[in-house]
């Protein structure tokens, strides 16, 4: 049984409880009073980027629309501007809830595979935890070449002028490709993160069992 099926079985007919127990800050969802200030404050919602803006997602969670919420591209349009958080009259940490739902959907393999920000988000985390510090060049290259070599070269060409500008200003170093900045105690960082994931997994499993 896949993780997704197991969780769907366990929380059958109670998607709100599933979100409360399995998603970071998910226990805040029930506090939403559907005023819509978050949706009206979201910069990318103005470009009709959100299939379902935050307050709509909150209502869908309460209505048990599990599949629709977790497969939605909506949460991935968050720019982490925190406007929704500071404006929410009920003080819901909306930005964190959006990140939390996105992370949960990604963890279950339900997030839209081709969503570019989902891809970039995973890439960023891998990039920065690999050596302890971000390698900006590898990060950009990883994004441009996500759809293969041909597409990557095309994407790279589109970015040519931006890259030349940064090179001239000494804010892009081609030698980062060969190694670049890193932490000394990479072993410690890996061990520490491994432990953190273990603890987090066991806490979530305990909630599911309890």
């Amino acid at each position, binding site marked *: 049984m896949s993780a997704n099926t197991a969780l769907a079985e366990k929380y059958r007919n109670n998607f709100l409880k599933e979100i409360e127990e399995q998603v970071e800050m998910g226990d805040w969802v029930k506090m939403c009073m559907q005023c819509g200030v978050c949706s009206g404050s979201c910069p990318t919602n103005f470009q009709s980027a959100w299939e379902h803006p935050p307050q709509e997602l909150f209502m869908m969670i309460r209505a048990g629309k599990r599949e629709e919420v977790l497969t939605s591209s909506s949460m991935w349009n968050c720019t982490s501007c925190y406007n929704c958080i500071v404006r929410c009259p009920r003080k819901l940490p909306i930005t964190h809830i959006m990140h939390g739902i996105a992370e949960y959907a990604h963890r279950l393999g339900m997030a839209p595979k081709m969503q570019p920000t989902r891809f970039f988000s995973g890439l960023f985390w891998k990039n920065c935890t690999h050596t302890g510090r*971000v390698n900006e060049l590898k990060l950009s290259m990883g994004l441009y070449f996500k759809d293969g070599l041909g597409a990557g070269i095309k994407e790279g060409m589109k970015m040519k002028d931006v890259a030349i500008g940064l090179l001239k200003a000494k804010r892009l170093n081609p030698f980062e490709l060969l190694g670049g900045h890193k932490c000394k105690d990479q072993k410690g960082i890996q061990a520490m993160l491994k*432990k953190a994931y273990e603890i987090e997994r066991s806490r979530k499993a305990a909630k599911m069992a309890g």
Partner: protein
Amino acid sequence: MAKHEYAFYPGCSSQKGASASNYLTSVESMCKTLDVKLTEIPDWNCCGASIGYAEAGELPRHVMNARNFALSEKNLPGQEIVATCAACWLGARETRERLTHSDTLMADTREALKEAGLTINEMPNIRHMVEVLIEDLGFDEMKKHVVRPLEGVKIAGYVGCQTNRPFGVDGESFENPQYLDKMVEMVGAESIPEYDMKVTCCGGALAFSEPEKAQAQIKDIVESAYDHGAEMIVTPCPLCQANVEIYQGQINQRYGTKFNIPVMYYSQLMVVAYGGSAKDAALNGQVIKARRLEEIAAKPVKR
């Protein structure tokens, strides 16, 4: 001994050859003038930034920041941590807040840190460089060192998101923070308090992953600066700086605009006003050159 000493968390983008290396150069010059001593936290790591959320999870993300706290406590005991990057500052402050409010999260963090041979006993204060300038030094002290006022230069203060929300600078409003305009006035330039895009999001990481969405935002930010007669934009955030500056060419192609406005850090303005050279202020680090500032930086200093 310096007047003010802090544990310094420079962040990934500030490193040599990285996208905000000009920020660090100018901050170093600025701190020299102000007698502020920053000691880099040895072997600091990335904060994880907000965009790592797909795989960061809750505990791993906080553990990354907690490692920096532990290293700071071990090597620079008793010093507050100062970040220049908005995302570093926000990430670290968020971790501080969460760990302070949850004993479970704190215990779990300590257990994970043990794997790297580290621990936290005291939770450090996390400050942004602008907080240090405003709260620890104050505008009068900052102004005292101005020997070359940026007279007649009109500058739009673009605060952006992450130095402003969800924490922000004490005493400032989320919708209309004033401190950056005051800093512009402090260096002798002309501020634009009615600049209506001062807290608009630049698109953040979406500038990489979904440029059309971010560039629609950046267009509004730059256009409004022009509409208000600005000849340059100033910001306290490395990602705001990069996003608003480096995509102007692409925006021109996309929208048929003719944008070419320099985007500076507050620290660069201060270094020039403090009598520093173009090199001290890292003006060579601009993709869109700030000619007017270069001219001023070449002038003799009024002492």
